[in-house]
């Protein structure tokens, strides 16, 4: 399972960082950086919630 970022959609709003800063951080350029793109089994629902919170649907999870 991996986290994908669609940089054409990302606006750097930071909801993902608010929800799960261990995995996401907005950079100075205003785009999200994925700090850890392979969440462990026990963290997936947590990461999923952060992904679902994106106001511009820029994040997705891929198996």
């Amino acid at each position, binding site marked *: 399972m991996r986290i994908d970022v669609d940089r054409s959609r990302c606006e*750097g*709003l*930071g*909801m993902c*960082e*608010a929800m799960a*800063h261990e995995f996401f*951080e*907005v*950079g*100075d350029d*205003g785009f999200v950086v994925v700090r850890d793109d392979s969440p462990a089994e026990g963290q997936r629902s947590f990461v999923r919630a952060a992904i679902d*919170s994106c*106001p511009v649907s820029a994040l997705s999870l891929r198996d």
Partner: protein
Amino acid sequence: MGLVIVGASLAGLRAAESARRSGWDGDITLIGAEEHLPYDRPPLSKSQLDRGTPDAVVPLRSRAELDELGVTTLLGSPATGLDTTGRTVLVGETAVPYDALIVATGATPFQLPGAAGLAGVTGLRTHAEAVAVRRALDEGARTVVIGAGFIGSEIASAARKRGLPATIVERLDVPLSRSLGPEPGEICADLHRAAGTDLRLGVGVSGLESAGGRVTGVVLDDGTAVPADLVVVGIGVRPATGWLEESPVALHDGDRGVLCSATLATSVSGAWAAGDVAHFPNSRFEGDLMRLEHWTNAAEQGALAARNAVAAPGVAPEFLDTIPYFWSDWYGHRLQFVGTPRADQVVTLGPRGPGAIVLYRRGTQLAGVLTIDRPRDIMKFRRLVMEPGSWEEALFQAKERVEAAV
């Protein structure tokens, strides 16, 4: 019967999705005043005002996706009443029965007296209004925005981006001073001035000038007139609860929003509320009664209200203890706010303009943060909001960040 959601925007859609995710297998009916499937509103005052944006509504979920989710829609038909004894929502002549109800009807912009029926005068809340504003800008409209709030500021920004003249008329001496404080308000005023927007402060509107049914100007109460082809009214909103006035659902004495508990339950059993319409006590902020008009709030509350609405009997309800967050884009600058501006003290660090960090203190805690053009920093401060004794740490971090080489 089933779950009935009144209000087909973000909160309503998230409620439907969340109910299904929680295992609700009964009917779900989504009732909406507009004829469109739920769509996203933040872009209406941002990217959708750009030249060349297609007119068509892009819904958040397609009809096929809603079908798959098992959501029946009743669109273009505002709810007109509620019978809590018989558990039915009235939609004109139609009575829609419910077991559980979610009120997510949002809010309606205040109108300017005397503006009804005058072409060129609009609010900006709906897709149709965004299309009207964009077309006016396409024709080179001289734009006057009444009210220097966030949406009005974004509209002025859209006009200036095209090089068109934009004026903002604001009754307060400093824009946003009541919501953000005087010094941050001055910073906001300077963003407008730097972009060439004509800011008229401390003055009200006494009337509109028109010719042949079209607006031609705005008359201010100091007697001056500002020529206008497009007037956008952004003087706030009222919760859309007219349809509840005859019902026993308790409404706020001031703005008539729906009074909720921290679980988003209304005062009547079987009914919850979510989004712009709902007042709720926020336990994270000492129980402050909040009613938030933010995208993130609508999304979060819609989902939580639905989880509580469809929870099995005996299951403890979920409580909301949220940190408010919103953003606004002006003239290429990003304003972001987390927490609450209701504070004992407001301290601005860094430049009085882009790059500013504004901290709001409540007791010994950081209560809120405003940043301008600091997308990397804002969520770091969010972690300190309402943490015991976090004020000193927030001040320290803010100083470090504004002193760091740019």
